[in-house]
């Protein structure tokens, strides 16, 4: 299964809006939302007829048995993540604990055990001949890279023999969820915003994506908000040998589409037209990757 991932570095540039348009245009039978910190793709598009939920367990976390704890403080001294709360007995802060097990190693009273910890929920939606894999991380949890990998694995597994291509909506940033999204991908479409912030974040996501050897294409959303910076992004792509896939104008109708749970290509609007052009430009290239 060829994976096209949609990323941006900066948040709110329109990844999910464009991803939903590409899903609709390509009629792909497999897609996923890897923005497990703030998933939104499920709010748009298809009518799902069936859904399968599964719990996501991150690393087991430390738990102190109050009956055995001698309150010696050895765990607190050894913990590098400030996850041990002083007291009698001592306690573990599950939001800070990274599951390293060092506290258990140093506890002279064997009072510390590692216990499974549900850190999120994963969902597979089925409908209209397609499968959609998504997840939501529990508030304040860490290790979302692992959850992203599982969202992708579940998608591949559920898509079975399907050998076409999958659209994968990513998260903002450049950290571990993005790295897990890029891993195994064939192409990355980067959605940039024409601002100094957008340009700075674009450079950082390109540097990150290059480490994975994926084909990189760039498009600009809300391009007419700042035509000068849009031109700078075009010139930058040319210099760096990256495919410039197109520019989408600022379009209040896009907001309307999202709020009706529809994609921008379901409406006759300027942003939808631009999305179709981007689709026409990148699809042949994706097939040749």
């Amino acid at each position, binding site marked *: 299964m060829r994976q096209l991932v949609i990323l941006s570095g900066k948040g709110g540039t329109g990844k999910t809006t464009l991803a939903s348009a590409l899903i609709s245009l390509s009629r792909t039978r497999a897609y996923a939302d890897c923005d497990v*910190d703030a998933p939104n793709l499920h709010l748009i598009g298809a009518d799902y007829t069936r859904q399968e939920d599964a719990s996501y367990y991150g690393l087991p976390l430390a738990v102190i048995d109050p009956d055995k704890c001698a309150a010696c403080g050895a765990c607190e001294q050894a913990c590098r993540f400030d996850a041990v709360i002083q007291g009698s007995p001592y306690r573990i802060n599950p939001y800070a604990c990274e599951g*390293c097990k060092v506290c258990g190693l140093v506890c002279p009273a064997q009072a510390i055990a590692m216990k499974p910890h549900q850190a999120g929920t994963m969902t597979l939606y089925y409908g209209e001949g397609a499968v959609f894999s998504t997840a939501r991380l529990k508030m304040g949890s860490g290790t979302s890279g692992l959850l992203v990998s599982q969202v992708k694995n579940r998608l591949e597994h559920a898509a079975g023999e399907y050998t076409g291509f999958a659209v994968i909506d990513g998260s903002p940033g450049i950290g571990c969820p993005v790295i897990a999204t890029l891993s195994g991908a064939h192409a990355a479409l980067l959605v940039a915003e024409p601002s100094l912030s957008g340009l700075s974040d674009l450079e950082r996501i390109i540097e990150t994506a290059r480490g994975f050897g994926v084909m990189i294409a760039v498009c600009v959303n809300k391009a007419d908000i700042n035509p000068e910076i849009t031109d700078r992004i075009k010139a930058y792509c040319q210099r760096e040998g990256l495919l410039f896939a197109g520019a989408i104008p600022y379009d209040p109708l896009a907001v309307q589409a999202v709020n009706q749970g529809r994609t921008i290509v379901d409406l006759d609007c300027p942003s939808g037209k631009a999305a179709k052009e981007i689709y026409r430009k990148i699809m042949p290239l994706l097939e040749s990757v």
Partner: protein
Amino acid sequence: MMSDRTIAVLSGKGGTGKTFISVNLACAAAPATYIDCDAEEPNGHLFFQPAIKTREAVNVPVPRVDPAKCIECRQCVDFCAYHALAWTGRELLVFDEMCHGCGGCAMLCPAQALKETERAIGRVQTGEAQGVQVLSGFLNPGEATGVPVIKQLLNTGHPGGRVIIDCPPGSSCMVSESIQDADYCVLVAEPTRFGAHNLAMVHELARLYNKPCGVVLNKALPGDDPSRQYCQAHGLPILAEIAFEAQLGKLTSNGMIAVKEDPRYRALFERLLERIDQEACHAAVGHS
């Protein structure tokens, strides 16, 4: 009245205008301190262009193996919860990016073959621009987590006064870390379904940490606003509404600070500061 409150600005969804709100709030509050905790995509410095005072590397510990001492027992490999160590059959490998720096392997090694050294994953930078102390954290591309950068950033000394914390998007551990010391949380929301959905998530996070909070509706457009509906349904105070304006978008996209360019925005952000103070004050009284 001067206030020393720490205000965290967060949103769940990216691109709602956290940095725009934070930078302008800090500017309106000057003398103040602005802390950019969005280490994966730090942008506040692009607006302030501060005169840099200090630059400090953020280092994390990683193990290094002395092959002459290694007795090939593989206890470290079995212990590491992050699969950062592997035994190839001939040598012990360390995958730096996977390591969380817990120190367990070095502690466990019966042959003292593992020693920890420091590895830079980013930097913390401080500077000053027009009465605002600007503190920024930068994560190096390719690195997995910005948490150590945020921790070091928040421990970096600053002159105090009012502190504005520009948080990363999402609702993960990185955001929790950023709001830990905040007296008040400003939630920035967009007038879309996406915006409202992610507003609900950060609202839950703020409640989890018992932080008083209110909402700024940004890029407001005429017509239905799912974020406003969420605030009304949940009794969340709307602190300010900022209408979408192409000219404001252009100004901000060029890295300019609206408060400095346009008296209308100065007035708006001064009112917002006052409103935050009132709300935070009420919350403090309510809690005592």
